[in-house]
């Protein structure tokens, strides 16, 4: 195993400055980013259409940037100033595409050996066998991609890229379609591989759990730009921008104005702007350095809101708001309820809670929100 001190040596740092305009019907899309990625996981996080895949395509060489420079340590992959463009096949960039792109007519073994054509046959076989063993799929060697499960296909695609010893690894939502158990096993495999091969890994995902599980560093993208970066904790726990918050799982985001500040209580009262003036919605929120009249956003996770069918009393929670149930939608194993309480709030319930409370649209309910479940965001 390489010495960890050595692993962050500059000759393995990916540094990229990319500008690429993609023509679109309504408005051209512009990718404009500059970042470096040290060996280890860097998670690219952002809504679809934010340019994550285009960014990976530029690094792999499948898309040519309009301007910029991409290098891995001293090796230059692309430099618009010198009109230099290293062909895709010579970049040694491992790229696991979103839909894997396994060769359907080749067996698992043949797929894995595809990138080793420069090696003698025996060496090729040995290397492929070794990595298939590492990923626990050596018994699938003679099957074709259509004959193995989704999780196994994912492993084959990873093995096929990793076996070539890439200088940088690009993973485009590699685990999106998998169940939780398979996901975490593959993540373990990836982490193990990463310990032995310290190269920059750019990992695109929509999933908060994957960000938390993998991210040593997160780049949050929106509209072709990087809008936030740092550790997952920094980026997701203390959201500064609304987009980050949306990504971080705030189903409810409201415009609000600071109404009054109560330093002695450590809280302040915010009035939600979307609510009708005749029926104001006030929330007690944590105190931040602010003045009355300040405009900000409040984010509340749907799972952090309690729902009661009679007015609750004697609670520590500071916000108890009356409302009326609008609709109940089942999503997988949770119920997403929409409640009109002056503003529309989304509340997540279990199936059991719905049945125990005999909830139905039209029912009067109370929403209970703890002060610290109200996350304040700069506008």
């Amino acid at each position, binding site marked *: 195993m390489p010495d960890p001190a050595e692993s962050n040596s500059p000759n393995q740092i990916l540094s990229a400055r990319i500008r690429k305009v993609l023509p679109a019907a309504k408005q051209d899309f512009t990718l404009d980013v500059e970042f470096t990625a040290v060996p280890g996981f860097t998670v690219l996080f952002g809504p679809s259409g934010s340019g994550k895949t285009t960014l990976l395509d530029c690094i792999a*060489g499948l898309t040519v940037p309009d301007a910029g420079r991409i290098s891995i340590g001293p090796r230059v992959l692309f430099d618009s100033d010198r009109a230099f463009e290293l062909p895709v*096949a010579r970049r040694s960039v491992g*790229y696991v595409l979103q839909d894997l*792109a396994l*060769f359907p*007519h080749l067996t698992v073994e043949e797929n894995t050996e595809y990138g080793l054509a420069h090696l003698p046959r025996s060496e090729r076989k040995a290397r492929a066998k070794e990595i298939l063993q590492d990923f626990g799929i050596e018994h699938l060697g*003679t*099957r*074709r991609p259509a004959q193995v499960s989704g999780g196994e296909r994912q492993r084959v695609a990873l093995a096929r890229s990793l076996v*070539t010893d890439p200088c940088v690894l690009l993973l485009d939502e590699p685990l999106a379609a998998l169940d939780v158990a398979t996901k975490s096993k593959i993540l373990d495999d990836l982490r193990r591989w990463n310990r032995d091969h310290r190269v920059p890994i750019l990992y695109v995902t929509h999933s908060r759990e994957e960000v938390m599980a993998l991210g040593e560093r997160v780049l949050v993208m929106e509209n072709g730009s990087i809008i936030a970066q740092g550790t997952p904790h920094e980026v997701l726990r203390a959201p500064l921008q609304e987009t980050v918050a949306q990504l971080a799982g705030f189903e409810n985001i409201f415009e609000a104005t600071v109404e009054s500040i109560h330093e002695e209580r450590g809280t302040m009262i915010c009035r939600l702007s979307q609510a009708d003036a005749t029926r104001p919605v006030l929330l007690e929120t944590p105190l931040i350095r602010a003045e009355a009249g300040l405009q900000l956003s409040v984010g509340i996770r749907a799972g952090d809101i309690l729902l009661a069918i009679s007015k609750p009393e004697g609670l520590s929670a500071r916000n108890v708001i009356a409302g009326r149930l609008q609709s109940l939608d089942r999503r997988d194993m949770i119920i997403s309820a929409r409640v009109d309480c002056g503003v529309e709030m989304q509340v997540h319930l279990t199936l059991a809670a719905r049945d125990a409370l005999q909830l139905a649209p039209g029912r009067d309910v109370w929403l209970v929100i703890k002060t610290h479940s109200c996350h304040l965001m700069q506008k």
Partner: protein
Amino acid sequence: MSVDWQAFRLTVELAAIVSVVLFMAGLPLAYWIAFSRWRWKFIVEALVALPIVLPPTVLGFYLLVALGSQSPVGRWWRSWTGHTLAFTFAGLVIGSIVYSLPFAVQPFAASFSSIDRKLLSASATLGASPLRGFFRVVLPLSMPGLVTGVALAFAHTMGEFGVVLMIGGNIPGVTRTVSISIYDQVEAANYASANAMAALLLAFCFVVLTVVYGLNSRTPSRKLWMLGPIE
């Protein structure tokens, strides 16, 4: 009633040579049509499709002019071989290649185009040259289209008439194909012979096409690979 077996042998020979040439020449042309981003590509596509709509006599006439002893090609051929291209088997091969070109190239190009580009991206990121990607990925996945193209070119050449008559004439053992021979028999009012040969040609072409379409329908490209490892 007599069947002109000489004409049959000649026709099969012609069709076989034309199919082989079209397979080899058609692959790069079809690849270019499928993958080129040249803005005037459609002009080439139209040229390739021309023999489908053009009357064989028009095509045959221009080929005759192009291959005749007055043309540069004809003169070059003459200085090389001592005789003209027109009214020879070689001339017939050239004419048939042009005439059957779209029947090979279009299925080739269609099957190349239908290949998921992501597979080619994956091939490239794994360090494979475009040529290696072509032979290891594009070609095997295009097999049904390739078989269709070659079979259509073969069958189409088997049955051509107008072009052959224009540039080949009717020389027994050299340029007299089955369709010309049938025409001769009808002209001579030998309907029984004409019928025998026509039926034979019909049956032959039908069998070829049935086999090809049967193979393709049972193993469309995607399902073909689900059959499992061939041990």
